[in-house]
């Protein structure tokens, strides 16, 4: 196996992809090998952290514990849109129920709205199919984030032989759906509350190394 691998290193890269399976193995013996032993595709796309969050398995809950709500993590990578523009849409749907979020995105004219709507529908489908969610409407958006994707530099031609270098931007979009009704929005902090907190902080001060 090691010798074969060393020989393969000198050859073209497809051999490396197929791993340890080689056609001569099948042809050598007369019987048909079970195909489950072939790795036909290696994990070329490295799983990101967000995708791995769906794989965590909690220990079974004890009888008295409150039910842990289901959490579904979904994302889309390398969307051809700006992360700053996408952020406004992510901020819009943060904390909404999934139905309300879909309604808002349907009547929004931005390019990212269509993409996020597709992502939400995919996540909803995943939730019902794989994550044991009973009602597809009983979900709310706990987290919705954007990230920067790979940027590519290109030349932008101006007049008089001048040129500029432009960036083709891409972004990622991440969403976490949680089962249950959406939590009520936090009341905004008034100036009075902030003043009370400040006064309390002043009152909590003590002098060190004294009685």
């Amino acid at each position: 196996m090691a010798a074969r691998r060393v020989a393969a290193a000198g050859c073209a890269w497809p051999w490396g992809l197929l791993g340890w399976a080689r056609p001569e193995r099948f042809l050598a013996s007369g019987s048909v090998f079970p195909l489950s032993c072939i790795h036909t595709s290696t994990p070329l796309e490295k799983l990101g952290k967000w995708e791995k969050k769906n794989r965590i398995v909690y220990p079974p809950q004890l009888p008295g514990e409150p039910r842990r709500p289901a959490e579904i993590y979904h994302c889309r990578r390398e969307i051809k849109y700006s992360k700053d523009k996408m952020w406004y849409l992510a901020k819009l749907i943060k904390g909404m129920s999934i139905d309300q979020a879909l309604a808002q995105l349907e009547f929004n004219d931005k390019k990212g709205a269509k993409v996020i709507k597709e992502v939400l529908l995919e996540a909803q489908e995943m939730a019902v199919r794989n994550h044991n969610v009973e009602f597809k409407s009983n979900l709310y958006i706990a987290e919705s984030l954007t990230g920067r994707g790979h940027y590519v530099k290109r030349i932008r031609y101006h007049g008089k032989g001048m040129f500029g270098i432009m960036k083709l931007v891409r972004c990622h979009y991440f969403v976490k759906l949680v089962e249950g009704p959406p939590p009520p929005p936090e009341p905004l902090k008034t100036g009075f509350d902030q003043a009370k907190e400040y006064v309390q902080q002043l009152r909590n001060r003590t002098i060190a190394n004294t009685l």
Partner: protein
Amino acid sequence: MPSALSKEAISLFHWCPASAEPCRSMAALVIFPSPLPRLHAFLQRCWGRLGRGVFPGFSGPQSLPWGPALAVQAPAFFPEPVEEASESNEAPSFLDSILWMAAPKKRRTIEVNRCRRRNPNKLIKVKRNIDVCPECGHLKQKHVLCGYCYAKVKAETQQIRLEIRKKEGGPFNAPTLETVVLYDGEKPTEKDEGKRIIERARKRPSWFIQS
């Protein structure tokens, strides 16, 4: 005149051997007549260089029009006043336009940028005018036709227009009659006497009421 005077005065100044202290009385000496034509030509060239823009910061026009005073009968001004004036008019305007351009004084910090980008007037507003269409159940805005219903009517209209095109067979063949659309199993009534009849090979859609 000043340079000529100062030169001669200085040479006399340093040259008074009689007393040790500087003889200031010598400064008020007789003015030499413009001495040699060589010196006069040198002075002329100096003035010329000055005017032509060796010192571009100069506001030229005030100092130029008059030349050194000469005892000899000769023109006191130089033969090229026009070009100098035009040159001196050009240079300040070019420099002025560069000096008065608006430019940012300091880099905008990320905190300032965030305050501007996340200001509530820049965030997307939540739409409160979304309802459910009573016909199809899809979402619609209150003041806008339902997108789904509009699309289905548009599709059916396109099919009817196809039939009309087949019947007419070319442009400019539209008869000056009304049109009636009949679906499967419908007969023209007495009301449809003088009208052109278009057949559609399908069941009548529920939303297309037969008049």
